[in-house]
């Protein structure tokens, strides 16, 4: 399980909340691609869940959650790491 919560500072300023914007059609496609990649790289993975909040997210609350299940923990842990890293690199979501 990966739960992403926000720091209370960004670019040197104090933060109260973040606002998330998304390009929905491409974000959905890219997240589906991530899930397909995970199933190819770690065939023993059972279930995958990726959820990203949009709009206003107060700090200390989670903005993103990724959950992966598998018979052994190694595959889940690697797959979760892959998911969050690839999400940050390729899913068109912006925070303000």
């Amino acid at each position, binding site marked *: 399980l990966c739960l992403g919560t926000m720091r209370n500072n960004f670019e040197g300023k104090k933060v109260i909340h973040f606002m998330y914007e998304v390009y929905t059609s491409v974000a959905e496609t890219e997240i589906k691609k991530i899930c397909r990649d995970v199933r190819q790289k770690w065939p023993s993975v059972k279930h995958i869940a990726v959820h990203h909040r949009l709009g206003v997210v107060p700090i200390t609350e989670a903005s993103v959650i990724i959950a992966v299940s598998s018979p052994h923990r190694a595959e889940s842990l690697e797959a979760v790491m892959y998911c969050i890293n690839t999400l940050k*690199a390729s899913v068109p979501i*912006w925070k303000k």
Partner: protein
Amino acid sequence: RFSSRRRRRREPAAEGSPPGDRGSMRCQQVAMQYFARSTELEELRSETLSVPQQITSLQLWEEIVKIHPRLVVIWDQVVFAVQQAYVLLGDQLLVLQSGDEVAIIPPISGG
């Protein structure tokens, strides 16, 4: 993961159009989408633009900047999404149809 878009089949150039390269002379109405910093710079979320049917991604950027000059400050940070596929700014030849969606994608910051 910003991979090049597959080329569509090229249509023959319109008769009488010059051989040199500002893109094909036939124009298409594309649906532009702006996000994040590009929206802030030009206070714009979406619009319809008339652009040449055949054009490289860099030429397309130059056409957009002619109309929205404040975007020039992010030229080295953006990519396009054309019909929901990422395209780098460069020599990639685009063959656009009316109604195609073109989005400006500033650096992403999700997660």
